[in-house]
């Protein structure tokens, strides 16, 4: 077998093993579908649960799960399924708002640290390090100490307590991008610092934030419901998931469904957020 030298093209891309078709993961599809259901439940709970979440029916109290009450009824005879669906909006809103507060605070801190000069970086860097000495739930409790209990306080508390972690990740990301070869290339072309920051540094450094935020919402839902459970967040009889769990504790031995279903919903929400977040993260890693 012979090969003419002219047919050998040095520019031909290297033969690489055929790329395996990306398998659609079952877990990701389920997570996305579940998230869609959560969004519908938040925006239009009536579509999924036509009953009244606050309708008290003493005669119907403590009914175990049955076709008419799939998740059973609570101490006042209210349908647990209906209450869970109607509580979705409040629970998710707390998670989303807390994540937004945490990421927003972190973004400001990180930007000041990276672009504010050495003194600012020193101060912010030390502050973040000190805040790490306050475990998440402890700093949340400090915020509640000042603001007093309630859903808004719980949201702010969870948000602020996650900020140091985010700030550290964003700061590292900004520093890595700023020291990268492509930022140097932009400098070599004589682009202005503002243009380099806006067109090159920020888009690349903030790309992982979407995955981070998705993972964060899942954790925030858990923390916020923990605060509610401790009686520091949303208060019963609000149909918020954590508050439902708190009032269900008393009846654990007699009405297990009051505890199991709200808890499962929180776990499922966090699972969905984690699955989607990890998938987004893997995707952004692959493309950078």
């Amino acid at each position: 077998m012979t090969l003419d030298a002219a047919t050998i093209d040095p520019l031909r891309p290297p033969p690489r093993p055929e790329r395996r078709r990306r398998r659609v993961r079952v877990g990701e599809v389920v997570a996305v579908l579940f998230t869609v259901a959560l969004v519908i439940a938040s925006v239009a709970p009536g579509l999924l649960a036509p009953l009244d979440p606050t309708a008290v029916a003493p005669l119907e109290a403590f009914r175990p799960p049955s076709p008419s009450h799939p998740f059973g009824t609570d101490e006042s005879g209210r349908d647990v399924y209906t209450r869970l669906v109607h509580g979705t909006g409040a629970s998710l809103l707390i998670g989303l708002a807390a994540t937004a507060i945490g990421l927003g605070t972190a973004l400001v801190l990180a930007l000041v640290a990276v672009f504010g000069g050495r003194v600012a970086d020193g101060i912010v860097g030390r502050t973040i390090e000190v805040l790490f000495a306050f475990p998440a739930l402890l700093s949340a409790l400090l915020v509640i100490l000042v603001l007093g209990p309630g859903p808004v306080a719980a949201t702010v508390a969870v948000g602020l307590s996650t900020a140091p972690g985010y700030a550290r990740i964003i700061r590292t990301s900004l520093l890595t991008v700023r020291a990268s070869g492509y930022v140097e290339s932009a400098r070599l072309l004589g682009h202005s610092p503002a243009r380099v920051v806006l067109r090159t540094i920020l888009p690349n450094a903030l790309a992982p934030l979407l995955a981070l935020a998705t993972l964060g919402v899942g954790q925030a839902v858990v923390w916020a419901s923990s605060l509610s459970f401790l009686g520091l967040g949303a208060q019963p009889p609000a149909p918020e998931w954590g508050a439902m769990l708190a009032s269900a504790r008393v009846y654990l031995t007699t009405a297990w469904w009051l505890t199991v279903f709200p808890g499962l919903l929180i776990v499922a929400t966090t699972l969905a957020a984690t699955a989607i977040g990890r998938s987004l993260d893997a995707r952004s890693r692959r493309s950078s």
Partner: protein
Amino acid sequence: MSARDVSETSTGPLLELDGLTVSFGSGSSRTTVVRDVSFSIAAGECVAIVGESGSGKSVTARSILGLAGPGAIVEARRLAVDGHDVSRAGGRELRRLRGDVVGLISQDALVSLDPLRRVAAEVGDPLRLHRDASRRERDGAVIELLDRVGIPRPEVRARQYPHQLSGGLRQRALIASAIAAGPRLLIADEPTTALDMTVQAGILRLLGALRDEDTGLLLISHDLGVVAAVADRVVVMRNGSIVDEGATAAILAGGSHAYTRQLVRAVPAGVPRGTALLSREPLPTATTIAGHTPAREGRGGASLDREGRAVLSARGVAKTFGHGTDATHAVRGIDLDVHPGETIGVVGESGGGKTTLGRILLALTEPDVGTVLLDGEPWSGIRERERRSRRRLAGLVSQDTSSSVDPRWSVGRVIADALPPRLTSDERRRRVRDALADVALDPDLRTRSPRTLSGGQRQRVGIARALAAEPRVIVLDEPVSALDATVAAGVLDLLDALQRDRGLAYVLISHDLSVVRHMSDRVAVMLDGVVVETGPTEAVFSSPSHEYTRRLLADVPVLPPA
């Protein structure tokens, strides 16, 4: 029972390989990466497999150890080492062969030795696994082994961790761990790729010595110079198949196949300045460009005209990093002038200050003392704001373009970003196409991400971007070090042609003396931050005056004249 007992009875070649085929995956996605490969190695013989990336040479070597990778399907009519059939061996049997009968030396010892274990533990492992040697026996043997591979102060080195050793010493330690149990066959997979020339020469001498002690040696390399230094026979692989094989001298003379000739031609050593590598045709002489004085009349650097003003000029630049006892004097007082249309080659080993000098010339690093002028105007010691409008005059092509382009941008956007400001969008699009055409890339590549391109294509994108800024001088920092030989030759030919066409000045930074010799009009040899020798390339290379230059030249693996 030691595997060696069996070998006493077996005769014939040490390695027998007949019809080796390796594929990955299954069904329709099955890819064959090695196809019907056959060769053999006798004791005391060195056979080299030469090929470019993707040729299947590493997979072939790993298959001999049963380490072709997860999911690899290895088939062979015969695959035997020292009489042991590897293709039919089970896990236990294979493990007994590995390290005892066959040793592996891989590339880049920094990652091939476990960074969390001491050198002694890594080197002594084969003795623990195959000889049941006690801790104390191993400690003694390790020091002997380290001494044997030429590591000074072996007692000290044995207690250290890999990261505390220099690149050359690490590679020697890796060799020591491969030969610890006295294997009869050694597989060396690109054993010198990340090393400086002088270090490489030492490693090659060591491998040669092992072969002379009757060890069979399978050498995998992309570098014909390395192969020429130790191999008795050469197998040329391409796309998973053997395309040529023969005695080393015959292969280096061009072998019997067009591809072999192309590989040999791609080596710049001995090809005079101004001759294209791939075609061996003389390049056209430089065109006169309005506003530029042609830098010279003839080619070869003999009649260099230095009357014209230098486009980039450094006077007494020096740069020190760190303070006190930790201070590193990266650059210590260097003068350099680069004229339009001329290439200055900067050679030296890693740590010699080449890269820092390049960064000072590009005003990415401010020199502690000395001045740099760009086009006669101050370039160092001024504020970045004042430099910005002139930055486009000096460009950079780095070793790894993929890390110097925004990962989110397409090829077209990368090039458009470098174009002069205030162009209409039509003009911009036209210029991007032109820029791609200038570097012989398909304009359709502009929508692709640079990451999806091959190494050679990416490097051409880097050049296209540098050119789009319309520079007068380009710093080429190891522009072809990461490329396969034939691809590198194409890039070098392209750079040469562009220079002639546009009167560009190049500062070529490279550890590869053959590349520098082929490309440069003048050369500066750097050692410890100082230029120890400078002058017209041919003068320096044919009669070096400094001891260090002589040593560098002596250690360049050479091809016998064709």
